[in-house]
C-alpha cells in the first residue's frame, strides 16, 4: 500500500503518545478503598504522521478503545504523555483543551447510541457549530446542509430524528458531526463494526475520500484486521494493554514477527474456500487473561507456543527491528524461530 504522503515533504508527526497508561481502580472493602487496578492500557508509545492512517487492532480487553478515548481525554491518563502537534495535552484543563477539541474528533462504534435520540439530525450536526461559535443563523444552516450532503445525505434529512435512519446512515451523521469543526485528526473507534457488510464499504470509502479531500489523519481502531489492513498505512497490534507489534500494513501481513500477530492473522476468516482450507491455522488455546491480574513478564506467554523461561520473568521491550517495524518479543533477540 503506497504512502499517501509525498516523499518530498518531511514527514511531520501530528500525534505522539509516550508511555501512556490508563488504569481503572477497582474498589473493594467496606469503605470503598482501592484494592487493585484494571490495567487497561499499560505503557504504550507510538506516533502518527500527518495525513496517514494508523490502525490499532486487538481483541476485546486489549485496551485499544481505552487508548483512543484516553488520547482524546475522555478518560484521564494515569501516566504518560500525549503530544498533539507539539502541545502536551495529557494534563491540560478543560478550558485549555477546548481549542484542541476543534482539532481532534472521534467517531463512535454504536450508531444507535452515538446520536441523541431526542435531537433532530440538524441539531446534532449543529451542536459543535454552536459550542465553538463557528456560525450563526443562515450561515449555520448552510453549514449543516453542506455537511449532510458531503456525507451522502440530503437537506430534508435535517429535520428528522435519528431513529428514522439506518445504521449506516447514522454513522454518516456521526461523521458529519465530527467534521463540523474541521478537525485535523479523527479517532475512529470501531466505526463500522456494527454495520452490515455492504454498508461497511460505503462508510470506509467515504472516510478515505474525506481523508484525501481534507488531509485528515486517522487513528482507526477496530478488531476486523481485514478492514484495518485495507484502510491503514501502518498498524499497531495490542494485547492486554500492551503494544506487541507495529509496522506498515504490508509489512505486518507479509512478515508478522510477534506470535500473537501470526495467530491473529491466521485466525481471520478469508472469503475464499480454497485459500481458507489451504491455510495453516494457528489456533490459540485458552482465553484472554484478565487485565486485572495480567501474567508476569510477557503477557502473551500463557497462550504462546514459543514461550520459554525468560518470558515469565522479564517483560519484552518494544523495539525497532528495522525500517520502523516494532516488536515486543524475546524471540527477536534469539533470532526468529
Amino acid at each position, binding site marked *: 500500500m503506497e504512502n499517501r504522503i509525498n516523499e518530498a515533504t518531511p514527514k511531520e508527526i501530528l500525534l505522539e503518545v509516550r508511555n501512556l497508561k490508563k488504569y481503572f481502580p477497582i474498589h473493594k472493602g467496606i469503605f470503598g478503598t482501592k484494592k487493585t487496578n484494571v490495567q487497561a492500557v499499560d505503557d504504550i508509545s507510538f506516533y502518527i504522521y500527518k495525513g496517514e492512517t494508523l490502525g490499532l487492532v486487538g481483541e476485546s480487553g486489549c485496551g485499544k478503545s481505552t487508548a483512543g478515548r484516553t488520547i482524546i481525554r475522555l478518560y484521564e491518563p494515569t501516566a504518560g504523555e500525549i503530544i498533539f502537534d507539539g502541545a502536551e495535552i495529557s494534563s491540560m484543563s478543560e478550558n485549555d483543551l477546548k481549542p484542541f477539541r476543534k482539532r481532534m474528533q472521534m467517531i463512535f462504534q454504536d450508531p444507535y447510541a452515538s446520536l*441523541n435520540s431526542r435531537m433532530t439530525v440538524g441539531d446534532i450536526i449543529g451542536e459543535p457549530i454552536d459550542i465553538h461559535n463557528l456560525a450563526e443563523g443562515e450561515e449555520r444552516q448552510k453549514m449543516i446542509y453542506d455537511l449532510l450532503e458531503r456525507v451522502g445525505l*440530503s437537506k430534508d434529512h435535517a429535520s428528522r430524528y435519528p431513529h428514522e435512519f439506518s445504521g449506516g446512515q447514522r454513522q454518516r451523521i456521526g461523521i458529519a458531526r465530527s467534521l463540523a469543526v474541521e478537525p485535523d485528526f479523527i479517532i475512529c473507534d470501531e466505526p463500522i463494526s456494527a454495520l452490515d457488510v455492504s454498508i461497511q464499504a460505503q462508510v470506509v470509502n467515504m472516510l478515505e475520500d474525506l481523508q484525501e479531500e481534507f488531509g485528515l489523519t486517522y487513528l482507526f481502531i477496530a478488531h476486523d484486521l481485514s478492514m484495518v489492513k485495507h484502510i491503514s498505512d501502518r498498524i499497531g497490534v495490542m494485547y492486554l494493554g500492551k503494544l506487541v507489534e507495529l509496522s506498515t500494513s504490508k509489512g505486518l501481513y507479509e512478515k508478522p514477527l510477534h506470535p500473537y500477530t501470526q495467530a491473529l492473522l491466521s485466525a481471520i476468516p478469508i472469503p475464499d474456500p480454497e485459500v481458507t482450507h489451504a491455510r495453516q491455522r494457528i489456533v490459540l488455546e485458552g482465553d484472554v487473561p484478565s487485565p486485572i491480574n495480567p501474567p508476569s513478564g510477557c503477557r502473551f506467554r500463557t497462550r504462546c507456543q514459543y514461550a520459554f523461561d525468560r518470558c515469565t520473568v522479564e517483560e519484552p521491550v518494544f523495539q525497532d527491528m528495522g525500517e520502523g517495524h516494532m516488536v515486543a518479543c524475546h524471540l527477536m533477540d534469539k533470532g526468529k524461530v
Partner: protein
Amino acid sequence: MTDQFKITPDLWEPIVIEDREKDKIVRKSLTYWQDAWRRLKKNYLSMLGLGVIILLAFAAIAGPMLSPYSYSDQDLNMSNMPPRLELHRLEDGTFVHVHKEYRLYEVSESGELLGRIQHTKEDMINKTREFEFNGNEIVIDYKLAAINKDVPNAPKFTLTINGQPNDTADKTVWNKTYFFGTDTLGRDIFVRSLYGARISLLIALVATLVQFFIGVIYGGVSGYIGGRVDNFMMRVVDIIDTIPLMLYVILLMVVLGAGLLTIIIALGSVYWVRMARLVRGQVLSIKENEFILAARTLGASPWRIMVRHLIPNSMGAIIVSLAMMVPSAIFTESFLSFIGLGVSAPQASWGTLASDAMGGLRTYAYQLFVPSFFISMTVLSFNFLGDGLRDALDPRLRK
C-alpha cells in the same frame, strides 16, 4: 413464483438511477413523544384518570367563580343540610323537608330550598314541635328518637300534617341549593370542595415544580460529577430523607405559623429528595452512552450536557415520577389539614372538610363522604395516569 405474463422487449431496458430510491425514508416518522402519546391513548384507565384531572382542574378554577357562595359564607339557619332531601307534600302542592334536627323547611318540588319555617311552639317535655305554614298545621313528634336511638333506619320522628300522619316521604330529590349539602356552620360543601380542589392542585403544582427544579438539578449534578462529590451529595439526601415529615412540619409551623405557605415550604423542602435520587440514577446509567461521550469530545460544557442531553433523555422517568408523587403530596396535605396542622379555618381543604365532618359523623355521613371521595378520586386518577405514563414512556416497550 412466475406470474404468467408477457415480457415485452422494452422491459429489458436498464433503469436509470433516478428511478431508484436511494436513502429514502419510507415509514412515517414518530417522535418519542408522539409514540408515547399513541401508547398512552390506548390505556383506558390512564385516559380516564387524565380526563378526571382535567375536569377537576376546570372545576377548581371556574367553579367557585360561578357559585353564589364563597367558602366562608355561613348561614346557621341552613346548617347540616344533606344533599338528598326527603320531601313531604302538603295539600296545596308545596313541599316540606324535615331536618335531622327537627327543623322544617319549605322546598320546591325540584329541590330548591325556599326557606326555613320557624316553629310556633316547642314542647320539650312531650318532645313535639308545631309549625304553621300556609294555613297548614304541622306537628313533629320526636319521642321516638330516644327510643330508637340505637336502631338504624328506624323512624326517629312522626310527622302530622293537619292531623294526618305523613311518615313516609313522598319524594326524594337532590338538593339544588347546596349540591353537596352544608356543614355545621351552614357553609356550602360543594364550593368548599372546589376550594379544596384548588388547594390540592396548588400543592400538586408546587410540589411538582419544586421537585422538578431542585430535584432534577441536584440529582443531575450529583450523577454527572460522580465520585466523592456524588457520594457526599447523596449522603445529604439520605439525611434529609430520615427526617420524619410530621415532626418537620410541626417544627416549621412553630416557627412560621400555620397555613398553606408553611405546608408548601414543608413539602417542597422534603419532596425533591426522591426525584434527586431518581435523576441521579438515570444520569449514572446514561452517562457512559456514546452520544454523551460525543458531546464531551465536541467540547460541550457540563451544563450543556446536562440540560441538552442528560435531562431530556431522562424525561420519561422524571415525568412518571412526578405523576406518581403528586398523589402522595395531595394526600399528605389532606392528612396534615385533617389533624389540624394544615390550612386553618375558614380555609377549605379536603382535609379540613374531613376533620370538620368528624363531629356529626353518625348523623351527617355525607360530610365526610364528599371530601373522602374527592381525595380518593384524585389520588386514583394520578395513579392511573402515572401507571400509563410509565408504560408509554418506556423506550424498551416501543414496538
